[in-house]
């Protein structure tokens, strides 16, 4: 074989090798793109799941805040019950009639 032929074979070999590597790189890139698509879908699903969980948490927080208000109101009512009772006690102690006292006793018994 002549030197020119050898040279051409050599150039062709290099070119073939480069083409194979280029194809391999293309395959790697495609694989990476597919992986990225899969990853994006998984991330989207995951974030949607988190959003749904947070949506479920909102009414619970509202419920806790509402019960906090109820407890404050109840404490106020207890205070009012005591104040009302004191008024009644003073009224009873000031009563100057057996009849009225007896009537009150019957009511409370």
């Amino acid at each position, binding site marked *: 074989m002549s*030197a020119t032929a*050898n*040279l051409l074979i*050599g*150039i062709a*070999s*290099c070119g073939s*090798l*480069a083409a194979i*590597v280029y194809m*391999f*790189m293309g395959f*790697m890139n495609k*694989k*990476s793109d597919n*992986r*990225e698509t899969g*990853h994006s879908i*998984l*991330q989207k699903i*995951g*974030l949607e*799941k*988190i959003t749904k*969980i*947070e949506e*479920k*948490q909102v009414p*619970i*927080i509202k*419920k*806790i805040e509402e*019960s*906090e208000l*109820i*407890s404050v109101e*109840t*404490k106020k*009512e*207890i*205070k009012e*019950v*005591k*104040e009302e*009772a*004191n008024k*009644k*006690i*003073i009224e*009873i*102690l000031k*009563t*100057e*009639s*057996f009849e009225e*006292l007896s009537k*009150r*006793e019957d009511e*409370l*018994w």
Partner: protein
Amino acid sequence: MVKGIAIILILLSFIVVGCAPAPFIAKEPFQVKFDPTLKYEVDLSGIIQPDKPVKIWVDENFNVVADAKDAKYLLLTQKEYAKYVVQLQIKETYKEIIIQQEILINTYIDQINSLKEYIALEQAKSKAYRDLWVDSENAYRQERYDHKMSNLINKGVTGAISLGALILLILAL
């Protein structure tokens, strides 16, 4: 002109290569703030307590006796009788307070149950975030590995081609 275009293209390629991708901004966490609940104490000190009633003991002939063991009946003045009625009123008040306290306790039980539910959801959320993190970390590692391998193959093949070309050049000469 050609030189200018070449310089602009080189500069543009530097900018494209040098530019970092847009930073990832994480989702803002759910903000919740609860004030601590103060301890509850039953305060009955506000209710007026009358003095101990003064009792007048009388025997079967309604004569006043000093000792209760000799007495048959108890005599109460209007003022002392009122003190007994007051005790009934206090009993009634306690009953009302107990009902209110039952409401209060049940409210706190509701709060505890809600918080338990909230914690369960928070745990589910934490697991979901962890899954996302694991997925991202695995994707990053895979990408890094592929990049490393790709670089290695690239360098190897470029080296082989360069070497081959050099040998061919020497042979040709």
